[in-house]
């Protein structure tokens, strides 16, 4: 009883030498349709040979936190990094089921999807406290100065969680990585195409820098 009490105190202070370090949790965060699940699939395909999440052009395809344990990646120097990859639902300030109707869903499915999406956003926010490092996935073709992006960044900064920004969809002509760099100059930014794997090696290299 007393042993467990002191063990808890030491664990809380990160001083318990016998405590087993839980696996590093790497979260994928960002607004809907930035490409978080496409990136999660890219990482899992590259290193585990299997996909992790379903992707779609309709926003809020990921409505639940999805975790892939024991993802091990290697860099050019053959150094290994093992983490739990956490794919999160996109964070938004508004969800209108009529948007899903316009994408071809029937009324019942659209309402169900909207309900699940709202719960997903709440879960994403709750899970922020569990993350050891976060990759913020932004659509490189859209304006990065949205309040959702600013709020996500501000909260990661307040929690002192290391951040890497991915400017996704650089295969598209409209993509502009410089705007994202200018919006968040305090963080490293890597431009990739998660869909086609463009510049993905740079991304993996940056992951090692993120958690070193």
């Amino acid at each position, binding site marked *: 009883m007393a042993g467990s009490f002191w063990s808890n105190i030491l664990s809380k202070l990160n001083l318990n030498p016998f405590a087993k370090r839980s696996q590093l949790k790497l979260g994928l965060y960002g607004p809907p349709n930035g490409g978080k699940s496409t990136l999660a699939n890219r990482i899992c395909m590259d290193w585990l040979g299997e996909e992790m999440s379903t992707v779609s052009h309709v926003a809020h395809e990921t409505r639940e936190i999805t975790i892939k344990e024991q993802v091990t990646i290697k860099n050019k120097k053959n150094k290994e990094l093992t983490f739990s990859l956490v794919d999160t639902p996109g964070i938004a300030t508004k969800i209108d089921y009529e948007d899903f109707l316009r994408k071809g869903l029937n009324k019942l499915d659209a309402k169900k999807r909207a309900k699940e999406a709202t719960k997903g956003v709440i879960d994403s926010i709750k899970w922020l406290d569990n993350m050891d490092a976060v990759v913020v996935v932004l659509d490189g073709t859209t304006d990065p100065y949205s*309040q959702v992006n600013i*709020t996500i960044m*501000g909260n990661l900064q307040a929690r002192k969680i290391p951040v890497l920004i991915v400017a996704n969809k650089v295969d598209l002509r409209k993509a502009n990585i410089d705007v994202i760099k200018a919006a968040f100059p305090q963080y490293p930014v890597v431009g990739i195409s998660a869909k086609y794997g463009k510049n993905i090696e740079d991304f993996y290299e940056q992951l090692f820098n993120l958690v070193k």
Partner: protein
Amino acid sequence: MVTFQFVPYQDIVELPSAKRINKLLNIVKDNRIVIMEGRLKKEEECELIAMTMGEIGPRFKGIELSVIYPEKGSKDALTKVKDVVTSILLGNRQGLTIIGPASIVKKIEKNPDKIELLTKEASLLQITQQNQQRKR
């Protein structure tokens, strides 16, 4: 018609976080656009989004949120010290927070010293005007 409600800093400074967020959210749910003096804490902004999600239903579709805050880099050292002392004595009432119901406010765009608030009616009017021009 669009209604704005000004929320002075002194009206919310004494409230605990949850009540502060609730107060703002209740105004927005009443289809009014909040213009709040100062800004919420970063964690409160996140909580506002989470609480908004909990309220979404057939009548309430969420919020549009924008925070305007003076650039920290453009101030000299003396002004920065003054700001810190003022915020310790009076609270952080710098900046402006705008929260609108998503059913009315389509988008809030901000430039350093200018806010553009695009309402649904305005965008509908824009589309109608574009269609009329095309017909001509």
